[in-house]
């Protein structure tokens, strides 16, 4: 069993090859190469506009990348195989791919007319098509996991930012994804609420969830990430264990100057 477990950890879930994304003439991402292994926590850092969020959104095809490949367990994401020019997958196929990739947004994006429980249960009912009782039980279990068992019947408007973000995390993990994407999950939160969200994310990491996290929380990147990728002007500058970025002087000048601004605020 131990041998199996080790080999499972080395399994690559996502491979990105020479992937590019343009908005008009602007190249948001250029020739990205990246492997994401199972149970790995990968943090994406870099200046504003460097392409972190765009890279994350290309992984589940919220942004259609226009060159190169994103593959999940060998399956091309978003596009049909072959064909030149490429054609997007039929909607049902894309939905099938997406339900294995959970996503958490900066602005939470809860559905305000649903209670916390309904927010989490919706996809269980409509996508997994579970019977009502089972869907509700699983939704409650997911909310329990993010310590919101007592808020199941609250509407988002009655929850704090940190609580809303945890509901959003519960909504994603209830679908039992094999990959979780976080797009600046704590950037819209008051400082004292950041911790409760990060703690939930740490717990998920400890349980072996594969996570890609766009973040400005350098502490989280330094202590929880297995690798940290630094992006600048749409290029992946480096992707290394956090010690190589936060420990001694990082090799790349752009990484050094980026981290300097954080050091001046004593964040790292």
């Amino acid at each position, binding site marked *: 069993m131990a041998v199996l477990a080790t080999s499972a950890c080395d399994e690559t879930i996502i491979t990105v090859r020479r992937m590019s994304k343009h908005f008009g003439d602007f190249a948001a991402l250029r020739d990205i190469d990246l492997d994401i292994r199972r149970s790995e926590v990968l943090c994406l850092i870099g200046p504003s506009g460097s392409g972190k969020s765009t890279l994350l959104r290309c992984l589940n095809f919220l942004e259609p990348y226009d060159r190169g490949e994103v593959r999940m367990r060998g399956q091309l994401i978003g596009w049909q195989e072959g064909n030149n020019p490429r054609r997007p997958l039929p909607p049902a196929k894309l939905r099938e791919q997406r339900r294995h990739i959970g996503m958490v947004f900066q602005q939470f*994006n809860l*559905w305000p007319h649903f209670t916390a429980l309904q927010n989490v249960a*919706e996809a269980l009912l*409509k996508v997994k098509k579970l019977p009502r009782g089972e869907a509700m039980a699983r939704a409650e279990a997911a909310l329990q996991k993010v310590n919101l068992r007592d808020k199941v019947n609250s509407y988002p408007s009655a929850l704090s930012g940190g609580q809303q973000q945890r509901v959003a995390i519960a909504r*994603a993990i209830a*679908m039992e994804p094999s990959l979780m994407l976080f797009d600046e999950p704590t950037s819209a939160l008051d400082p004292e609420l950041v911790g409760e969200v990060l703690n939930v994310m740490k717990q998920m990491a400890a349980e072996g969830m594969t996570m890609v996290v766009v973040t400005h929380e350098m502490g989280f990147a330094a202590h929880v990430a297995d690798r940290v990728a630094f992006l600048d002007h749409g290029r992946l500058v480096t992707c290394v264990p956090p010690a190589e970025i936060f420990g001694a002087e990082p090799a790349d000048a752009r990484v050094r100057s980026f981290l300097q601004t954080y050091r001046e605020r004593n964040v790292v």
Partner: protein
Amino acid sequence: MEFDLYLRYGPALLHGFGVTVLCWIVGSIGGIVLGFAIACLYRWTSRPLRWLLQAYIEVIRGTPFMIQLFILYYGGPHFGLVLDPVPAGILSFIIYGSPYFAEIFRGGFNAIPRGQIEAARCVGLAEWTITTRITLPQMLVFITAPLTNFLIILTKETAILSVVTVPELLYQTQTMASETFTYIEPFLVLSLFYWAMVVATSWLGERVEARVTRHLRRAY
């Protein structure tokens, strides 16, 4: 005031009111359905069809209802479309209302934050499920007031149907007036009937609005 007139013309007036309500309700529901379909098509379709829909909206909104009714009822037979007055009235009512409803729905769609749609796509919800479960219930918050408004306007537009001999309220009232040479009595009751429809509509609008904004007020 000669109240015994009402005894004599009561049945005719009530029948006229029934026809008015029928044309109004069926026409409005049809207009809402067609308008919603246009708004959905507009949202998901390609540019040429979108241009076509925009043209439809501009033409129908840009011409008077009475002219549209004339063209359908008197011009229809030239194209093999022969309709009785009531079906013709209802059909033209549906067509007349649809672009206004479409614009109300289009505004409603635009009022829903994009992120909520993205979140729904991320958990694998289908576009139609997103529309019926996420977008539509929330847009009701924004569109109930304009919808109620337009439905109230439509109650009174039904009077125009009398010009193609639909036996609705105004038609019956005018008959009563010309047969008895009275004016106050028939038009007083006409006003009361319209007023009742308007009051009922705005009451319903308030109820719907209270229902769809529940989540914005209720806090635990």
